[in-house]
């Protein structure tokens, strides 16, 4: 067999082989219908298409449809298509495409010339470009040695291998290699997304405005892409970059959505807020804010946001759904609140968090479900713009046949809902109903009944009267169909009416105008925007500057994304009637789109906006906004302001709670205080702030807050509990225990309160025991207990003294200066209670706390000898330390007195030493400034006497110098 024969055999066999895989009897309708093997069907299709077995166009088609049903993505279905031409597209689409292209060509030319002009003046040197990469580095094409050997061999072994290669195959070595591979510890995978080092701000110093817009847009696109790939963190970074260049509403909105998906509610809320600041009433922002508020448990405000969305877009599905959920939550919340008030919530912040978590398993799934709709493949095209579509429809849905009837008399129905207008409409619809009932009878005879109804309608709609009865009937039937959503039927009726009208040769442009306008509404409903535009245009030719056709045309343009025309139409509408809210909203929306599309100079690209003659305007302006409307507006504005404050308040509160969770109590106190500035009557804020104060060991403030809270809510357990803690901190164990008992009375199940109560009772007993005269001089146990909370107590001291000053209504506070119940005297014993009293003063203080205790005790009894003794026991150097920041005027004067009267004679050196150290104590200078005259006199006396003393440790000059520091 020579080579030729072999090759000829081969060439023959190849097609035969292909055909052999598909027996001829498989090329049959019956077989193909039953065949479920996609691959085999593909083969069959290939054979059929090749024409080897004859050409059967119908069978090919059948096979294709079958295959498509089984596997729409089958490769066999792919056909070579010629490029599309104008003929493949509808005329409208084509003209739209060419229009857009032409526009772009013009724009591109303009922006190019602009760019050239700019570049003439623009400094080409850009400082923020990194330097040239280090000198020429060479990278070899090999990877590092170890892995390289293996890689290379595996790469070189491209099939087919030859026999020689197999001969060289060393099984043992390969086995070793495999084993080695297994034992070798691989380095971890490199995940690029894990080390995002993207700057969230961009340097735009060297960019022109035009470039900035481009760059911002590009970053936003990147954000969108990342969003679509579910890389929300990355998306946030890119949106932030875009916003750092040019802040846009869309940018904020998109970032908000990403934050929502990341469940960073707080950031999302801020972004929504910013978007709404830039553009109040932005639907997406409102919707997203509602989502966030719902997540944060603020159902009331979420519902409000959703309602305002639905007011503007009654058919927004997402909003409707969300509102239902929120309402459900609100209803659930009511009983829950009651339950909550039974169950003590002591640590509000923590508890709220718990609440969030409790809600979480339900909510995120819902929210993600709701929001992922935006990310779902079907709606992916434009993130979040999914809402745009229903929105468009929503707008279209508004023109109802009610308004059609009085297209001349009435305004476009205001979004706010204009009552008088509505009355007319209701009458109208009533007449419609009558007609409908008649029509349902579905008989010729019924039409007579219907006719008067129709005429009745024409009374309301004056020009309709010019229509001959059959046409009027057609029209009314059309209106009816329209009202019932049978747009195709309505369309039919209107068309009949129009043909009838033209046939009759009547001269009543108003009626024809209305008919066209109504038919346009049908087209709009059917989504046939181009026909709608045509009808509107016809209508407008008949009756220039009539409102409804203009509005409808604008809507149709908008749905076709021909924003410029839409803009012009809306603007014209507004010239005719400034009160058309729908037009205002749309103009805002379109302006944004146009800016996005055309850049800053979008206005220049607009077609001319026709000037509406005064007559047409006046016709519309007969009714200035009534007082009611104005009032409603004012109320709305007020409402808005209130809501803004509310939102602000909530975000602050949230922030505060966050801080608490993070343990940053100082900041939390600050935020809560701001909250209270906004709303001074919020009980939870007081209790929260009290918690922070407690954590910060500022017990007096905590107590005050609790008092305020209790003033607002006299039965707030949380406040009671926290006040108890504050009292404990202030060492007012009695008040503490009474507060705790109050808590337990309200809810006996609070374990914390019980525990605290036990502890406090113990403390109380101890303090009583300490206070009792039979006790030994030094009471050890109290320090033991306090040892654990030493720092707390120390920090608590200033508050304690302050509390003593401020809280006069609380005689039970541990204050040595106030006459307190005997059991409350934890140190120093009761004032003037026998001669043993001084004994309870601890004369050997080992720390600041003990010292202060002793000092206060002595002062309370005006026990100068005790104080003198105390001072003589204390090394002068430690005096400032012991006093720490507890110094006040009375203490100073008391010490002075003691030094003067008791110690000066005994030990002037010690006095001098004390004085040299005393003035270094904290707050000394302040305290001295506030001393009373008598106290000052006392001080001067002391120094005079001291200088009179002869001593070898100090001279008169020293005393004089020292005195200068005091006086």
């Amino acid at each position: 067999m020579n080579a030729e024969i072999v090759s000829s055999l081969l060439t023959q066999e190849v097609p035969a082989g292909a055909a052999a895989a598909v027996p001829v009897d498989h090329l049959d309708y019956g077989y193909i219908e039953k065949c479920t093997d996609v691959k085999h069907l593909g083969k069959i299709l290939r054979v059929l298409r090749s024409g080897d077995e004859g050409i059967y166009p119908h069978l090919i088609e059948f096979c294709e449809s079958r295959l498509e049903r089984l596997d729409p993505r089958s490769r066999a279905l792919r056909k070579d298509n010629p490029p599309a031409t104008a003929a493949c597209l509808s005329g409208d689409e084509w003209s739209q495409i060419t229009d857009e292209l032409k526009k772009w060509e013009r724009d591109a030319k303009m922006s190019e010339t602009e760019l050239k002009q700019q570049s003439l003046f623009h400094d080409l040197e850009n400082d923020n470009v990194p330097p040239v990469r280090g000198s020429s580095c060479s990278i070899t094409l090999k990877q590092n040695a170890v892995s390289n050997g293996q890689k290379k061999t595996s790469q070189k072994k491209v099939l087919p291998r030859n026999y020689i290669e197999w001969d060289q195959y060393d099984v043992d070595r390969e086995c070793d290699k495999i084993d080695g591979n297994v034992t070798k510890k691989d380095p971890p995978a490199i995940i690029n997304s894990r080390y995002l080092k993207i700057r969230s701000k961009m340097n735009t110093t060297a960019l022109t405005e035009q470039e900035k817009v481009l760059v911002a847009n590009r970053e936003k696109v990147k954000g969108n892409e990342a969003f679509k790939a579910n890389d929300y963190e990355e998306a946030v970074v890119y949106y932030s970059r875009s916003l750092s260049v040019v802040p846009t509403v869309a940018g904020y909105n998109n970032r908000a959505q990403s934050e929502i998906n990341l469940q960073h509610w707080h950031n999302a809320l801020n972004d929504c807020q910013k978007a709404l600041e830039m553009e109040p009433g932005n639907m997406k922002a409102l919707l997203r804010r509602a989502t966030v508020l719902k997540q944060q448990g603020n159902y009331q405000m979420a519902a409000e946001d959703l309602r305002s969305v639905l007011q503007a877009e009654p058919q927004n599905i997402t909003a409707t759904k969300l509102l239902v959920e929120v309402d459900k939550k609100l209803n659930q919340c009511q009983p829950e609140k009651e339950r909550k008030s039974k169950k003590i919530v002591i640590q509000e912040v923590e508890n709220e968090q718990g609440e969030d978590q409790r809600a979480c398993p339900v909510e995120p799934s819902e929210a993600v479900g709701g929001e992922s709709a935006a990310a779902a493949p079907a709606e992916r095209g434009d993130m979040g713009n999914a809402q745009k579509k229903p929105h468009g429809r929503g707008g279209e849905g508004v023109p109802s046949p009610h308004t059609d009837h009085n297209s001349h008399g009435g305004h476009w129905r205001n979004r706010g809902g204009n009552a008088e207008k509505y009355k007319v409409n209701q009458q109208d619809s009533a007449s419609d109903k009558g007609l409908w009932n008649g029509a349902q009878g579905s008989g010729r005879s019924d039409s007579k009944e219907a006719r008067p109804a129709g005429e009745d309608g024409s009374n309301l709609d004056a020009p309709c009267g010019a229509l001959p009865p059959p046409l009027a009937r057609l029209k009314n039937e059309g209106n009816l169909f329209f009202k019932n959503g049978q747009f195709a039927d309505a369309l039919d009726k209107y068309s009949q009416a129009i043909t009838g009208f033209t046939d009759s040769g009547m001269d009543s442009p108003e009626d024809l105008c209305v008919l066209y306008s109504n038919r346009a509404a049908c087209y709009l409903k059917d989504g046939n925007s181009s026909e709608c535009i045509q009808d509107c245009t016809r209508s407008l030719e008949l009756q220039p500057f009539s409102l409804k056709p203009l509005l409808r045309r604008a809507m149709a343009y908008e749905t076709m994304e021909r924003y410029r025309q839409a803009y012009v139409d809306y603007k014209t509408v507004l010239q005719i009637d400034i009160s058309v809210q729908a037009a205002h909203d749309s103009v805002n929306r379109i302006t944004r789109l146009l800016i996005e599309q055309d850049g800053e100079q979008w206005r220049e690209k607009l077609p001319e906006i026709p000037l509406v003659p005064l007559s047409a305007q006046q016709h519309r302006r007969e009714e200035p906004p009534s007082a009611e409307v104005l009032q409603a507006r004012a109320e709305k504005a007020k409402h808005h302001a209130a809501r803004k404050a509310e939102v602000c308040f909530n975000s602050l509160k949230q922030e505060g709670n966050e801080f608490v969770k993070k343990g940053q109590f100082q900041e939390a106190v600050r935020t809560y205080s701001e909250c209270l500035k906004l709303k001074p009557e919020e009980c939870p804020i007081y209790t929260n702030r009290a918690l922070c104060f407690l954590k910060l060991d500022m017990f007096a403030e905590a107590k005050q807050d609790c008092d305020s809270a209790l003033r607002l809510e006299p039965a707030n357990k949380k406040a009671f509990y926290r006040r108890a803690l504050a009292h404990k901190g202030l060492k007012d164990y009695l008040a503490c225990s009474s507060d705790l008992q109050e808590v337990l009375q309200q809810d006996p199940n609070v374990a914390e309160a019980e525990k605290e109560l036990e502890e406090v009772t113990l403390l109380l007993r101890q303090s009583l025991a300490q206070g009792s005269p039979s006790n030994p001089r030094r009471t050890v146990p109290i320090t033991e207990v306090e040892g654990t909370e030493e720092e707390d107590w120390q920090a608590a001291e200033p508050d304690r003294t302050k509390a003593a000053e401020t809280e006069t209504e609380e005689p039970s506070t541990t204050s040595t200066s106030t006459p307190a119940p005997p059991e409350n005297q934890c140190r120093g014993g009761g004032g003037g209670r026998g001669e043993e009293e001084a004994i309870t003063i601890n004369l050997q203080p080992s720390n600041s706390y003990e010292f202060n205790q002793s000092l206060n005790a002595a002062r309370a009894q005006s026990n100068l000898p005790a104080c003198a003794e105390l001072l003589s026991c204390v090394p002068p150097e430690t005096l400032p330390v012991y006093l720490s920041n507890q110094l006040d005027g009375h203490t100073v004067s008391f010490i002075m007195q003691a030094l003067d009267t008791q110690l000066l004679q005994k030990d002037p050196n010690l006095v001098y030493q004390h004085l040299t150290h005393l003035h270094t104590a904290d707050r000394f200078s302040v305290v001295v400034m506030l001393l009373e005259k008598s106290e000052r006199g006392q001080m001067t006396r002391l120094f005079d006497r001291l200088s009179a003393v002869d001593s070898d440790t100090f001279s008169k000059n020293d005393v004089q110098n020292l005195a200068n520091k005091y006086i």
Partner: protein
Amino acid sequence: MSTPFEKPQIIAHVQKSLNYTVFDSKWIPCSAKFVCLGNYARGTGVMQIYEVEHGEVKLVKEIEKAKPIKCGTFGASSLQQRHIATGDFDGNLNIWNLEVPDVSVYSVKAHKEIVNSIDGVGGLGIGDGAPEIVTGSRDGTVKVWDPRQKDSPVANMEPGEGEAKRDCWTVAFGHAFNDQDRCVCAGYDNGDIKLFDLRNMSLRWETNIKNGVCHVEFDRKDINMNKLVATSLEGKFHVFDMRTQHPTKGFDSVSEKAHKSTIWQVRHLPQNRDIFMTAGGAGNLHLWKYEYPAQRIKKDSDEVDMGVAGTVNLLQNVTLSTQPIASLDWSPDKQGLCVCSAFDQSVRVLIVTKLNRV
């Protein structure tokens, strides 16, 4: 899947026959103009600037150069300058100011043989960091150039001593999401794909797709590298998920056999990184969309992270010519507008519709 009615359509907007072989065509950023680069029959190079106007293209400028020009890019030039960097048959890298095209702004003898491919980054607001140009040549080297440094490359990727020199067919920049990070991907005639990390000056990853690599492109140059598409001589293309690199398995990929002939080019839509078009040797264009998997990372048997590739869907395909389509470029400014040149000596402006709805 979108219904047929909703499918994007590829419309041949303008077709223009040329009297030279055109190798590359590129939109001039921020304009309605594009540049065609090629080779006159008499052996000289040519650059032509066309402007799209009223449904046709108008020749704005024609510049003849000594050597045939193989490839060009605007990627390393600022929007204000818009200088084009070209590589020619003689291995020269030139940067031209198209307003004053007589003398090159920058010129260097970059390679010993033809420059097959060129790419730029750091300009046009795309990619942070320094403007850089990478060239790949038949002499087997890949070199990175900074227009601010004359005569020598800033990085040179060449085979070691004694190693076989493979023809480098394609180069692409990527991963340029901050000032430091940057990667170059190169494809060779033997099917090697190599990823060079310019930050660490090392070969980060390599693989072999067993078939000459005609073109590689990252879906975006200026993000943390996300996807890489590599097309091959025999009609297959591979999409690598570049987010997760397994220590041994590298990047996961999905491949698709689309054309019956070489895929000469792949270009991602500048407005949507998940849509790309491939241009085939039989004069056909395929428009694809990449769908991400539900989870982009999974654990292998050793609990090491590895990437998961998604799927690609064909959105539309058309046949424009009988000759290979050698170049393709999306307009950076107008979504859906693209220019492609084929070896039938013609250049076409195409419009792809409904790209924002897929």
